[in-house]
């Protein structure tokens, strides 16, 4: 209770005074600052999403193409018995076909190197083709054969043919010597002009390399040996040795020597960047591959194998068919379990349940289950489904059961919302013409709520499709090289766990495959969510 008369009557504010104007400016500046923070925050969130998608697309896109060699192969009847073609020597057939196209390699080692251009599975590709077409034995056939991962990446330009021979430190170090005038050039060849102490002990033991190194170290005391000794050519110690042999009097003295510079530094001295062949390729391989490219045999068509092949140890042959099948089985089990159970539970809780302790407990449980970490569901699956019930490890059945437990809360919550949205008039009308409560719900309310329920189910399934951790714990990351043996009770892998396994693989080609697999997974998720949105739009009703 305040007494009006005691309120302090302040002097009227002068809104035009400079202080007041400054205050107002400051207040509006604060307002704009808040707005700017908001825009920055949204920009960051959207930008991060953009970076995520771009980096995945950039690394994943090459995997949708696969470099192949259209190899003309003579299916030699002397190597493949028409009566028993499966036992044929296809490795030799592929080798012969390849060597017919490229400059002949000489040594066995070179031959092995050159065959490594093709995928290690090349013989199996030809075998499978010949087994499917036995009439081709004795004929010439042309089939595309995937090249191995390094050449796939080389052809797509992901990895370079040549790399810089020297690193930044090495180039800087040489620059320093040049600036100090240590590098001299005669007849287009560069030398290091160094003061060398001809150590009698080292001459005694013939360690002229040591003398050369010591003299260089005196100029670059702060550089590690590995970064600078490579500057000296292999014949640099010989230059010192020559001097000592022609004039034994120099032993024990410090003399000036000119030591030749090694190959990459010769190029550097000319002001060019020295390049060497990428270590992943041998010269013979590059020569042979260039010959194949020159003959127009190499192309990179769309990589259907990415969808048709199952997993493989070789990135160029690895595909997603096994993972997609496994995910499909697991989602099928998940749907068959969680859809009916979820709807029944939701209908009971929304329409029938009396308000009592038990139903309260159920509701609290459902809300909490929605927030339990997914890895805990994996532990549950491991302990109960695998440990207690003894169901098979790695099976889509178990995966689907675990996923259905995680999807149930989503479906129940969506179903209850959809049931609530059906107007009471429908129920009352049905009750009014004598339907029982069950009939009202089964015949009228549920069909009207179905679009909403289906939308929620699809969203729940999309979540389940992306779940990884629980599947890892029950072992649904098996290596599945063939789709044929797959079943609900057989070991399987799923899309997200396949992504996890590929991301863990050391081969470089799997980086691209992993991104491609992620793009495929995201594609499925987008399709499912679009289906949900379309469903909602199609059946949306205004009551």
């Amino acid at each position, binding site marked *: 209770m305040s007494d009006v008369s005691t309120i302090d009557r302040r002097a009227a504010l002068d809104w035009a005074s400079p202080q007041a104007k400054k205050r107002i400016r400051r207040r509006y500046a604060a307002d704009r600052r808040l707005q700017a923070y908001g825009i920055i*925050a949204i920009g960051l969130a*959207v930008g991060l999403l953009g970076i995520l998608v771009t980096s995945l697309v950039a690394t994943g896109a090459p995997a949708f193409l696969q470099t192949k060699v259209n190899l003309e192969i003579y299916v030699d009847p002397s190597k493949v018995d028409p009566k028993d073609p499966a036992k044929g020597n296809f490795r030799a057939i592929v080798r012969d076909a390849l060597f017919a196209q490229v400059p002949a390699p000489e040594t066995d080692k070179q031959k092995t190197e050159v065959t490594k251009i093709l995928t290690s599975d090349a013989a199996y590709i030809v075998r499978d083709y010949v087994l499917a077409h036995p009439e081709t034995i004795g004929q010439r056939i042309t089939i595309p054969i995937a090249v191995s991962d390094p050449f796939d990446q080389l052809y797509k330009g992901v990895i370079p043919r040549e790399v810089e021979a020297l690193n930044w430190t090495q180039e800087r170090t040489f620059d320093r010597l040049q600036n100090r005038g240590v590098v001299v050039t005669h007849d287009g060849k560069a030398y290091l002009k160094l003061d060398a102490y001809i150590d009698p002990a080292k001459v005694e033991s013939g360690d002229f390399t040591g003398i050369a190194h010591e003299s260089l170290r005196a100029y670059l005391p702060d550089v590690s040996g590995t970064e600078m000794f490579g500057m000296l050519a292999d014949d640099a110690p010989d230059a010192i040795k020559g001097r000592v042999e022609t004039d034994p009097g120099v032993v024990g003295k410090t003399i000036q020597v000119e030591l030749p510079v090694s190959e990459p530094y010769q190029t550097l001295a000319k002001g060019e960047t020295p390049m060497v062949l990428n270590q992943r390729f041998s010269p013979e391989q590059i020569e042979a591959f260039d010959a194949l490219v020159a003959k127009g045999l190499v192309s990179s068509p769309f990589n259907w194998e990415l969808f048709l092949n199952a997993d493989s140890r070789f990135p160029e042959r690895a595909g997603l068919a096994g993972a997609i099948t496994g995910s499909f089985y697991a989602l099928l089990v998940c749907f068959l379990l969680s859809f009916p159970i979820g709807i029944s539970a939701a209908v*009971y809780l929304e329409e029938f349940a009396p308000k009592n302790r038990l139903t309260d407990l159920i509701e609290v449980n459902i809300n*909490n289950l929605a927030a339990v970490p997914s*890895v805990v569901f994996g532990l549950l699956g491991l302990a109960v489904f695998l440990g207690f019930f003894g169901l098979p490890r790695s099976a889509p059945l178990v995966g689907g059961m675990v996923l259905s437990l995680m999807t149930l809360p989503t479906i129940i919550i969506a179903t209850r919302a959809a049931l609530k949205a059906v107007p009471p008039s429908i129920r009352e009308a049905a009750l009014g013409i004598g339907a029982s409560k069950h009939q009202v719900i089964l015949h009228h309310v549920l069909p009207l709520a179905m679009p909403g329920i289906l939308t929620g189910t699809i969203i729940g399934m999309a979540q389940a499709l992306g779940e990884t951790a629980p599947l890892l714990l029950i072992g649904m990351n098996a290596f599945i090289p063939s789709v044929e043996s797959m079943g609900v009770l057989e070991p399987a892998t799923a899309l997200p766990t396949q992504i996890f396994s590929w991301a863990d693989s050391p081969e470089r080609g799997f980086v691209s495959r992993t*991104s491609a697999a992620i793009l495929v997974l995201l594609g499925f998720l987008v399709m499912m969510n679009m289906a949900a949105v379309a469903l909602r739009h199609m059946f949306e009703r205004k009551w």
Partner: protein
Amino acid sequence: MIGYILLAILALALISYVIGRYRAVASVGGRQYELHSRPSYHGTFVAAWVGIPAVLLVLVWITLQGPVIDRLLLWSLPLGTTDGMDQGQIGLLLSEIKSVAAGNIFGEPSLVVEDAAERYLRWQTIARSAMVVAVLCVALLGFVLTNARISPTFRARHGTERVLTGLMIACSLIAILTTLGIVLSLLIEALRFFERVSPLEFFFGLNWEPQIPIREGQVTAGGSFGAIPVFAGTLLISFIAMLVAVPIGLYSAIYLTEYAHPRLRATIKPIMELLAGIPTVVYGFFAVLTVAPAVRSFGETVGIPIAPNSAFAAGAVMGIMIIPFISSFSDDAIAAVPQSMRDGSYAMGATKGETITKVLLPAALPGIMGGILLAVSRAIGETMIVVMAAGIIATLTANPFEPVTTVTVQIVTLLIGDQEFDNPKTLAAFALGLVLFVVTLILNVIALHIVRKYREKYE
């Protein structure tokens, strides 16, 4: 096998539906209006009593068959075979018998094992045929009992609806069963762990080296289970995640609810929600592919050595994942503040910014805090990002540029590829799981409580 039996039960149920329906129609000579319930209710009633008990019997049977046969096998072994064997060796013996029975013979199985394998095969066949017979009996019994009740006055609809209600209650109970299953399985395995490792060491020990020798003579670290470094790592990564997510989420929610044009809001909100729909394994790969190398090369240019699997990279990516949680919860909380409070503030001459910081945010604070707590529980339980981007070795450090490990990483690494349930290494995963479950549950309960209480206040 089980699949065929279930299919057969389905077929039996369908047949009994047709028979029941036909009998109901026949009982009134085709004048359906004389029936109390419509014929399909009679059919459904019979089918339900044929199908449901049979399916339940199959489920109970396959649950019990394995353990019962195992027990019988152990009894049937010659006296003294299992003397002095511990639980693990008995398990090995049983699995040897089973693999011999399945035809996978490695080495020379002893005579006892071969005999037992033969018995095992025989008993399995017996159990299978017995199950078929029992299921048929139950189905037939159900059919006979219910079929006899079909008459014009029989209240089949009430019966059917009662069965339906029962089924629905059973389905609702699955939520409780799941929670019960989680709690029991975690508790039982964790208790077995604490029999071997003292809880004191687990909760207060500073050294986490769970790699204990599985085979004799294998050289590994001692195997110590002090989980403090693991908990600390989890907290560090979650803290970094919240440091990224809370400002971005909160400021974007403020902008979207108060400043943004409705059309901008309608485009930005779904884009933000996309972040929530991306599977976490994708974020994990993003962390490894893009963020970690970027963080590392940034560290190199400013001269800080940053590990490739630093806590910072994993935490930052987890923060990106959590942005939509924070933003949508804050959005809801701010939008729920009554318009009258906004109007009051404007009427006093406050700017929009002042209204937001001095009126809306304090009023929405409980809701925002609830959202942040839920996000923290999400961050603690998040698995794939840290499995792929964080470390495996448990180090006790507060430096965000060093690798640390988390509870979820340890659970996954301890359990991948390992099926033995009897060593402390795998059991430790369940102990960690129990801690994780309890902590996230408490966070969720508090968060939901805050959110609900606050929502009621304004409604």
